């Protein structure tokens, strides 16, 4: 990514971590808690006049990234250059100056407007905060102008109403009016239509596109909805657990999604066409805990195409056993669970695990159990990552190959962070395949 002359925002190596306060005991003994890596080393450029979509599920970090770019959340490290100034280094006072140039529209229009303020007061509020109006008449005139622009006309009908008198779509129009009243250049729109009814969404999106044309705006569109993003965005960045896993022009992403996660997201959308159904081989499970992300590629535990280098580990074995037990009858489960025991060692990220047999079970018994699991589902990608299974001294030892962290690399018109598109990783995987110890 080269920063061209038209770059409005340039993000480099951005990290935003939220520290988790540990338990009372932790604090008492001075242990610091872990951190949630909401944004984990992200670089991207926002070009002037474009609509960039940040798309991901909840917990992907998309909202935090949008807020860090606006300076609403402090960055842990990295830089965010807005019109050449690094906003992560600015004081609150200087940031406030800059905020006139960048605004945000939130998801919930009901929660974004103060119920005790009239629409005119709410929409004109930014002018007062920034001291940009001489008197009340001037504020009112300017408010009338933007209300008319967002379609809340005749404006006299809306100026003195309260948010509770307005429909959801009308409220979102008022929120947009408040966001554009300072003539910003950048607008971060965080799920601006997801709380609205279907028949209304298109109207708000159309309004936003018209405003972009008229006022030369640049949008960062934060959403979980790939269908509206497809229509609305010039470029798309797909996020997963704090990382950008794929970024590129919208057409390329939708026509030929590269990352298995992007592919899954696109296939999972329920389309209003009964002749097409969602395929059954979708990724299992959900976005894991960002405080303890999976080793290697974060998407690996759910990825149907994961292989040797993706970072298999102890916690994957636990999930494998739990999946097996969920499908099994009660008796089978009781027997296997008794042999495996609580298996605490499978709760932490590690590429080696030692399991002691319980209730008289030997290491060999546990190895037999694993072999049964493997026969039950030999194509589970989990097995590609297992380097060695051995039973020694009454315990079972399992080793996995070392994780290789994926890199964001160019693949045709897009960039993708997946080993499937990394020659070096593919070569390494081939080598490991030969080195597996049975």
């Amino acid at each position, binding site marked *: 990514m080269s920063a061209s002359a038209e770059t409005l925002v340039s993000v480099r190596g951005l990290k935003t971590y939220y520290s988790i306060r540990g338990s009372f005991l932790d604090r008492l003994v001075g242990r610091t808690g872990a951190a949630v890596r909401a944004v984990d080393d992200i670089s991207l450029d926002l070009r002037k006049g474009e609509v960039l979509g940040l798309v991901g*599920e*909840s917990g992907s970090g998309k909202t935090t990234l949008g807020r860090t770019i606006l300076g609403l959340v402090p960055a842990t490290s990295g830089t965010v250059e807005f019109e050449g100034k690094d906003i992560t280094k600015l004081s609150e006072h200087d940031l406030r100056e800059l905020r006139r140039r960048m605004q945000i529209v939130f998801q919930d229009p009901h929660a974004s407007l103060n119920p005790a303020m009239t629409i005119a007061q709410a929409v004109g509020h930014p002018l007062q905060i920034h001291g940009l109006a001489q008197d009340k008449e001037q504020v009112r005139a300017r408010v009338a102008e933007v209300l008319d622009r967002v*379609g*809340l*006309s*005749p404006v006299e*009908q*809306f100026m003195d109403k309260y948010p509770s008198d307005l*429909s*959801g*779509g*009308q409220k979102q129009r008022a929120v947009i009016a408040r966001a554009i009243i300072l003539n910003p250049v950048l607008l971060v729109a965080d799920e601006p239509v997801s709380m*609205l*009814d*279907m*028949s*209304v*969404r*298109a*109207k708000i*999106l*159309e309004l936003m596109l018209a405003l972009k044309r008229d006022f030369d705006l640049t949008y960062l569109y934060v959403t*979980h*909805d*790939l*269908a*509206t993003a*497809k*229509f609305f965005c010039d470029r798309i960045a797909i996020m997963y657990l704090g990382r950008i896993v794929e970024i590129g022009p919208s057409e390329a992403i*939708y026509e030929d999604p590269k990352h298995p996660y992007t592919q*899954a*997201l*696109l296939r*999972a*959308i*329920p*389309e*209003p*066409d*009964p*002749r*097409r*159904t*969602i395929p*059954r081989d*979708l*990724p*299992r499970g*959900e*976005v894991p805990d960002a405080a303890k992300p999976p080793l290697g590629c974060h998407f690996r535990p759910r990825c149907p195409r994961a292989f040797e280098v993706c970072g298999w580990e102890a916690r994957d074995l636990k999930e494998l056993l*739990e*999946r097996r*037990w*969920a*499908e*099994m*009858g*009660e008796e089978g*489960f009781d027997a296997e*669970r008794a042999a495996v025991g609580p298996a605490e060692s499978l709760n932490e990220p590690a590429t080696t695990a030692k399991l002691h047999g319980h209730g008289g079970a030997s290491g060999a018994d546990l190895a037999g159990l694993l072999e049964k699991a493997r026969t039950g589902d030999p194509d589970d990608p989990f097995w590609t990552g297992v380097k060695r299974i051995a039973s020694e001294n009454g315990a079972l030892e399992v080793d996995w190959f070392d994780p290789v962290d994926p890199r964001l690399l160019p693949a045709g018109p897009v960039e993708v962070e997946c080993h499937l598109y990394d020659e070096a990783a593919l070569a390494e995987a081939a080598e490991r395949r030969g080195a597996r110890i049975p």
Partner: protein
Amino acid sequence: MSAEPVLTVRDLRLWYGTPRGSVRAVDGVSLEIGAGQTLGLVGESGSGKSTLGRGILGLLPEGAKSDGEVLYKGRNLVGASHRELRRLRGPELGLIFQEPMTRLDPLMRIEDQFRETLEQHESKLTDAEIRRRSLDTLGRMGIPPTRFRQYPHEFSGGMRQRIMIALALVLRPSLLVADEPTTALDVIVEAQILRILADLKENFGTALLLITHNLGIVAEACDHVAVMYAGQIVEEGPARDVFAEPKHPYTRELLRSTISLDTRELHSIPGAPPNLITPPTGCHFHPRCPDIMRVCPAKDPIETRHDGDRRVLCWLHGPESEIPPGGGEPIERERIAVAEEA
């Protein structure tokens, strides 16, 4: 629909008083769901779809009034005593809510939530049977038995919704009402839950009323669809047929304004849904309808049946004999002021 419906709703009316007048949330609704059948009830916010779902289960707030019939296996639930309704809810009528976290007791282990539910309704079960029934239902929802003794907060959103569904299904109800069961979930998890719901009929033989604002979800999980607008069902039929060839202009416009991956241009319905205190005269959709005729604002539409199993509430489809002379002439739709826009 099939010969022996599990649920038959006939001319159901539900309304409640507000300071501004009485809200007719459900205004003369009829529908049927057969065993193992899935009916999708779609509508926008304020269409009355959730009130209808709750009204069927007798779960309306104090002060709500009802009229008409809700026949469950031949028994009329409208006017049934609290006691009888409570006895039916659970083993006969199940309900799945939108936000699973607020519906599970945060202080109870999953095991105890199941124990309580089963003991309440099937007091003869032994501990071993309770465990087997619970684990079996949870297993079918993909919840591993190792997590049986955990608390709700230890589960992810999708898992909680699976637990909620298992908790409803463990009593093997004949009818399940699911009110926006996937709205709070991410798209991949939503697809997982939809698969579970779509498989209900094979795995449990349950009749399902799936309430949603998302047409895609109906297409995915339902055999039949009923489209609701301003308290009325304006169109009903097999989902495949209704989506392929909608008869009611509202259904057609709603399908057109749904933004999907195939959307080439944006489309929206002018105006906003009406309030249900003073809905428009005649057909409630007429102020927003592109196909408005002279008769539409003047006379309440009459339901007509088509192709055996489709019905529609729109003058475009007759009955001809009821349309006054000249009533079929198109008229210019009143210009909708921008101020009325949603």
